[in-house]
């Protein structure tokens, strides 16, 4: 009886261990399969749908006090766009900078930094959450995107707002690595969604996205596009970049970054 019991017990442990090993290598193999990636990625739709139900009243992201500011606000991603065009704009203190608003709009716009700063601004102290896990709190000042959209008058076919940036985070010689991001109109018209030109009371510095960056406060850091040069209203995202709606989205990250 005893030896049999021990061998049975041994069998179970060995079996469980090899089953575990098989499961892990199986999970790795599943992780490599695009169809399975697509399958587990489908939970993004569930998360988006659930959060949008709960966000229907458009509540604000938490705002903080001056005492809550991060002593140092970490700059991440690109910290100095290398393109000659950006470099010449920077050399002139962005005097020649124009924010282009086009695409599916009734009236295309071209706005100078001075014009943007002359528009009614919103100041908010919010938390920036990187997808990696860290957070920093900063005070942002900028133009509500809703105000710019009101001037440009999106067509009824417009569903997304795309932000084209000056930085080439992909690092290639062509434009395939240019940073871009997109949000839908639900977030675009939210009162805290602003095109910020100041951080902590100072003009936006280069590492944090000068002269203009997006703040879309209910989503993660990679949605907060820096060095915004052009705002495009679009009906779909599959013709931009690699078709997923943003630089990091094209590299596997979720388009909806509310979680």
């Amino acid at each position: 009886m005893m030896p049999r019991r021990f061998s049975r017990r041994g069998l179970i442990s060995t079996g469980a261990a090899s089953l575990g090993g098989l499961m892990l290598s199986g999970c790795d193999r599943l992780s490599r399969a695009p169809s399975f990636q697509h399958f587990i990625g489908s939970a993004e739709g569930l998360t988006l749908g659930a959060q949008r139900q709960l966000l229907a009243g458009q509540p604000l992201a938490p705002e903080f006090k001056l005492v809550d500011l991060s002593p140092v606000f970490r700059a991440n991603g690109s910290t100095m766009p290398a393109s000659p065009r950006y470099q010449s704009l920077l050399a002139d203190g962005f005097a020649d900078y124009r924010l282009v608003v086009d695409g599916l709009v009734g009236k295309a716009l071209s706005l100078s930094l001075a014009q943007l700063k002359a528009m009614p601004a919103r100041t908010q102290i919010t938390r920036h959450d990187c997808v990696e896990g860290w957070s920093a709190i900063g005070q942002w000042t900028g133009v509500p995107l809703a105000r710019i959209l009101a001037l440009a008058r999106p067509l009824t076919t417009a569903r997304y707002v795309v932000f084209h940036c000056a930085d080439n985070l992909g690092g290639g010689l062509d434009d395939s690595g240019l940073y871009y991001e997109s949000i839908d109109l639900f977030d675009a018209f939210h009162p805290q969604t602003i095109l910020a030109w100041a951080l902590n009371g100072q003009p936006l510095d280069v590492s944090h996205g000068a002269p203009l960056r997006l703040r879309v406060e209910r989503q993660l850091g990679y949605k907060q596009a820096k060095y915004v040069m052009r705002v495009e209203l679009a009906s779909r995202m599959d013709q931009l970049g690699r078709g997923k709606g943003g630089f990091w989205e094209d590299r596997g990250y979720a388009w909806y970054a509310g979680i």
Partner: protein
Amino acid sequence: MAIEATLAPASDTSRPPEGRREVVYRHSVVVRVTHWVNVLVISLLLMSGLNIFNAHPELYWGKFGANFDFAWLAMGSVHTAAGAAHGVLRLGGLAFDTTGVLGVSAGPHGTRLYQGFPAWSTLPSWRDLATARRWHFFLAWIFVANGLVYLLMGLANGHLRRDLAPTISELSPANMGRSILDHIKLKHPTGEAAKRYNVLQKLAYVVVALILLPLMVLTGLAMSPGFDAIAPWLLDLFGGRQSARSLHFICANLLVLFAIIHVTEVFLAGVLNEVGSMITGRYALPRDRQA
């Protein structure tokens, strides 16, 4: 005394024949199914969670926390003057050499990996935050649905009250003391007492099912910038997003500790009977030692 003496043989005759143990129906189908779903889903949540942690292997307290702020826990590596790489775990002001496991560990094909948790513990095994997040949030939905089924059914059919809630007498110092001693002596309940969970077992299951697992969901949601706009009180409850992230990590560690003790107890109490009962629901009562 006389009555007891006459009763004893009578109860003996009602016992199963020698060599056969009484079998009781111990675990409902809801408990069994949700248990095994949890085993699979929580294991994968843990491993994908470790991959996500590796993207920024530092933990902070408070509303914010990044590289320039004080991390109460950090994993990293240092190079000695001789050029050897050492994995380091920093806890507050303490530093531990964790080479081989945390900070510096072995990768595929003899490579050396500079990351928090080692490749064998993460899902996927290579560093891939995007894929790990897909796994994690896909599994989280299953975990929440599974947990809701367990809790709602447990409330409705009395499982939580009948099987998990300790009675006042069970919580008495004398009974608690005896149960602790029994556990230390690796003495497991037999006969009638084995039909119920013992008091330490009940408390462990209550802490896991009603405190730690719900805390995993709530601290997880508190890290979501979208959910923070929906329920800002979660941030106040946990003391900020970075505190929630730290608590998420601590609760996950406590669940691993629970799983180690739980599986150890299963082996000590008889792995076939225990695992079998969690599959079929039927549990053979261990015979009284006196019998």
